[in-house]
């Protein structure tokens, strides 16, 4: 009954007060129960309010609680498989500077690697999309590089470049290179034909088409690539640290060393740090996207 009335009041909308059956005793409570129809206020405010609604945050919270309970059950039964959550938290709290320093070591490798890998990929994508010859010359090797498991090259890189930052940056750069190359190359070609025709009839130079049309059009693709590649860069850095035995710092080194001494609380504390960094990087990309892509369909369709 209640639900039925709820639907009716919603449909009638503005004249809800008059439309509600006055003889129906449940009518006033129903009217209270129905959430006020959200006015299309400023979209940002609407979004902020929606986060507070239980149907937005509750499902994830329930899953989180279930996972935590399951984890604790396993940890209690088999302490050598999973450490208790409290222990992980205590480890993190006991020496936060240790984790921060190592996290920073890994993060800086990841970021330098992304800068090098994604930067090179971007420039190459531009060159490849402008010159067919280069495309045919380079793309096969880029694909081969992509399908080669980088972990397999990592030991050789350590031999070649030593235990410093260089081999790790190279691994991270290789991991992040390909997604950016493919995405940006696609984006540069995704220019709507009518717009290109307008540029052509104005006899715009290749450079002008690139700068004023192709690169801005590729921005959504570039940022989508960064969304993939930034978390990937963390993985690249950690893998490189695993491989470069005897390297000085970084969460990867720390996790490997702790695992070999069965300090699972340190291992998972390190993993927590990595996860937090990944989320942070994703948030950063989302922020940049909101700033730069206000004009793009993907930004707008969700708000309507």
């Amino acid at each position: 009954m209640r639900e039925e009335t709820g639907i009716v009041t919603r449909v009638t909308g503005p004249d809800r007060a008059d439309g509600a059956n006055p003889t129906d005793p449940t009518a006033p409570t129903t009217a209270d129960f129905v959430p006020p129809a959200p006015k299309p206020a400023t979209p940002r405010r609407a979004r902020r309010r929606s986060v507070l609604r239980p149907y937005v945050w509750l499902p994830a919270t329930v899953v989180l609680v279930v996972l935590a309970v399951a984890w604790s059950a396993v940890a209690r039964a088999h302490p050598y498989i999973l450490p208790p959550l409290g222990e992980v938290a205590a480890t993190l709290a006991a020496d936060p500077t240790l984790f921060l320093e190592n996290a920073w070591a890994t993060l800086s490798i990841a970021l330098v690697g992304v800068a090098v890998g994604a930067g090179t990929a971007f420039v190459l994508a531009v060159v490849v999309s402008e010159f067919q010859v280069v495309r045919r010359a380079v793309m096969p090797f880029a694909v081969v590089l992509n399908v080669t498991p980088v972990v397999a090259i990592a030991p050789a890189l350590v031999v070649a470049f030593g235990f410093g930052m260089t081999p790790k940056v190279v691994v991270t750069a290789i991991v992040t290179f390909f997604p950016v190359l493919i995405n940006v190359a696609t984006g540069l070609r995704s220019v709507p034909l009518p717009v290109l025709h307008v540029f052509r009839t104005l006899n715009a130079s290749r450079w002008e088409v690139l700068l004023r049309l192709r690169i801005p059009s590729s921005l959504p693709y570039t940022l989508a690539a960064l969304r993939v590649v930034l978390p990937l860069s963390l993985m690249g850095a950690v893998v490189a640290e695993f491989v470069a035995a005897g390297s000085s710092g970084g969460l990867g080194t720390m996790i490997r060393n702790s695992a070999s001494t069965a300090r699972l609380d340190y291992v998972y504390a390190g993993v927590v740090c990595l996860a937090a960094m990944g989320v942070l990087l994703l948030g950063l990309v989302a922020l940049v996207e909101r700033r730069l892509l206000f004009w793009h369909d993907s930004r707008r369709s969700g708000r309507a």
Partner: protein
Amino acid sequence: MTAGIEVHGLTKRHPGARPDRPALQGIDLRIPHRHFVSLIGPSGCGKSTLLRILAGLDRPDTGQVRLLGRSPREASRRKAIGLVSQTPALLPWRTVRQNVALPGKVNRRAGKEIDSPDELLRAVGLEDSAHQYPHQLSGGMLQRVAVARALGLRPDVLLMDEPFSALDEFTREALQYQLLGLWQRRATTVVFVTHSVREAVVLSDRIVVMSARPGRVHEVLDVDLPRPRDRKVVKGPHMHDLEDRVRDSLQSAWKAGAAPDDLVPL
């Protein structure tokens, strides 16, 4: 005196199409400068292909095209061609005003100044939207921006490919009169591709009816409605006469061409 647009013996085959059915065959056209000409015809008659060739976006297999005595390439080097397509083709990351100013920013070597963007926007009645972005505007407004952008260069030739076909009828009619007003003042040669008989009659001095498979000029009809045209002029029996003549011509053009391959046999 040089014509606004001259086309001689133009042929165009699309690669991969049937060789006996060129997209355009033996097109001869002479459009006096400052005339408003519509291209109309069944789909597949090559009117958009012809427009692309006029714009220098596509090359003919044989034949010659002259825009005020110049080839399309030369004309575009001088920024003498304005193009408005079916979609507004604006840059979504630029404001309306920046979009209108775009032709002045590229190919500066042409040494051609554009009209002030603010004036152009006023001319199409969009001065209040100057700082909005395309996604904030309606379809009709966007197409007005595209027209303003094309007119800013004071082009010798304005090429329009079904510019209003995606709009609702009211907006469409309003834009037709607005376009006529702008054209009256700037007096360039306009080639206007359309599917609508009424639109062709309302706007044009001359209507080129084309037939399909192969694409040919079927008939050229003069529209002797007085200018400037307003809603009063385009009412009445003469208007209907003209529309009927164009429709008849389209009928016979349809019969003249081979049936399309994709037509479902009854």
